[in-house]
């Protein structure tokens, strides 16, 4: 070489903006965008008492995080947010441990299945489509049901304080659930039901956690209330207990098998989320439960419509370039 290069490695120019390079996602993102996303979704989750994964994962797609990394990292973040909630319910004893363990058994099987399915669909190049379709389907159904239910509740309240029907244990109608075998007693919830529905619900939620990067509370809480008919005071604690362990398992499986968990991304979202949730919980106290549910239903439907629209509208580029075995180019 004619002239000597100094040979030393040079650090990139220090950026005055607060860009951070995510080690696993391998992209550079503004720190405040991540903290803001965490805080915004945390605020909503504190206000509505939901995990917020169903909002965060699509938002991570929109800012350019590869879907595989977004979904796996969300499992890790939900693990953190459900840990604090589950601890609080554990202390207050508003948690049905026996039911939680059954849901968890189903959830573990679902999570293992989901991670395999995820890896398989990724190898086919269809994972984005599958995630979008899952979101549109689940959010559409849950959002629609929640919306109808809350509108009915608001109308009933306005019609003049009639008590909610079906609240008392004695008046409960017998359904097909009661005819299933393998019955077990759940003293905390005051139930004597078959173990099949909790395990099945747990498995469904575990699969969703692995594929959609959600805790699955938005499926599990209604299922516990309307299908298992658990008392509402233990529903949230039990659901958080299951979510904590299923997302922990999903994190380990995704990290071990797909190497798609970005700890830096997860921690930034968690910090924003913890702060946002406190303000959200305070804001939520000033609103009526039915109105909160109607608002949440609106948001769920909005995310569903946005993802559905993206599936139908003609894309800007009719070709998709993927790196073999990894995320996008």
């Amino acid at each position: 070489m004619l002239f000597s290069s100094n040979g030393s490695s040079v650090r990139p120019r220090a950026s005055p903006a607060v860009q951070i390079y995510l080690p696993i996602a391998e992209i550079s993102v503004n720190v405040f965008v991540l903290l803001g996303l965490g805080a915004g979704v945390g605020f909503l989750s504190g206000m509505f008492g939901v995990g917020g994964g169903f909002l965060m994962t699509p938002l991570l797609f929109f800012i350019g995080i590869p879907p595989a990394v977004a979904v796996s990292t969300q499992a890790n973040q939900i693990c953190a947010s459900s840990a604090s909630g589950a601890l609080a319910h554990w202390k207050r004893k508003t948690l049905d441990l026996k039911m939680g363990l059954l849901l968890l058994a189903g959830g573990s099987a679902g999570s293992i299945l989901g991670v395999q399915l995820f890896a398989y669909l990724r190898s086919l190049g269809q994972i984005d489509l599958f995630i979008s379709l899952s979101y549109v389907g689940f959010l559409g159904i849950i959002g629609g049901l929640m919306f109808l239910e809350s509108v009915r509740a608001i109308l009933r309240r306005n019609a003049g304080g009639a008590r909610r029907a079906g609240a008392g244990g004695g008046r409960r109608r017998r359904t097909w659930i009661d005819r299933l075998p393998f019955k077990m007693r759940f003293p905390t919830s005051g139930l004597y039901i078959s173990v099949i529905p909790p395990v099945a619900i747990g498995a469904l939620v575990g699969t969703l956690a692995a594929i959609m990067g959600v805790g699955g509370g938005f499926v599990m809480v209604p299922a516990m209330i309307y299908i298992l008919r658990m008392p509402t005071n233990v529903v949230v604690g039990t659901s958080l207990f299951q979510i904590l362990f299923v997302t922990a398992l999903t994190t380990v499986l995704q990290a071990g098998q797909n190497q798609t968990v970005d700890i830096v991304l997860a921690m930034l979202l968690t910090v924003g989320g913890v702060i946002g949730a406190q303000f959200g919980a305070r804001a939520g106290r000033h609103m009526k439960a039915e109105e909160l549910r109607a608002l949440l239903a609106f948001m769920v439907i909005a995310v569903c419509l946005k993802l559905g629209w993206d599936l139908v509208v003609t894309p800007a580029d009719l070709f998709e370039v993927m790196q073999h075995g990894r995320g996008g180019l």
Partner: protein
Amino acid sequence: MIGALLFSLALQGQPTLLTSEPPSIVAALTHETVEIREDFSGQELVLYGATRGMTIQDEIVVVLRGPARDLRVMEKQRTFGIWINSAPLEFENIPSYYAIATSLPLEEIATPESLAGSGIGLPATLAIRAAPTAAETERDIRPYLDAIGRAGSRNNLYAEAQRGVEILDGGLFRATISLPPLTPVGNYVAEVYLFRDGRAVASRSASLRVEKAGLERFVYEFAHDWPWLYGLFCVVLAVLAGYAGYLAFNRR
């Protein structure tokens, strides 16, 4: 330092302008290694070089090529109203990064045929690398190659700087190339060509390494070398963060 460098280069290049010895070219990059740390948001590289026996009609072309990747390209087709990825084609050894800087617009330096022959320029490079795929399929691969080009341009991984090479006095030249935030890690090759009458008459290459460093490297290696342990670590950290949040909540 760069001033001294240029001065010594100037001394080296000066007398050769008058002689008619065969053309030759030398070049070096300002960096031999680029480190991707947590604050990485792109990096500007400068390639310096000198030519011997350069005439007024000669032009310089600088190419920086990143590590090769295997790609799968799928065409979206509407099925039941939904756009679904279908008709996949696989391409091997496609450069993950390709930047070209020239002293004149490339099409004025050489004909497409000449560029295709020497494999200079993105279309020529992609065509050569895609030859095995083209041999295997009956489909027209051109739309697929165009899609690879578009995807790279969107992320600034494929870039063309017309007049990105500045020719200085005394046969010296300088090219500025920028690495975008999405720069892939690996070994890069910079190639410099001296074009005369539409043909490359001299060339030289220099190498560059892009690697992760600091916290980036630690996390990346942890996640890839001990993935299960890393997963457990992530869970422990998450639970601790949740516990901290719980304590903060209850203190009030």
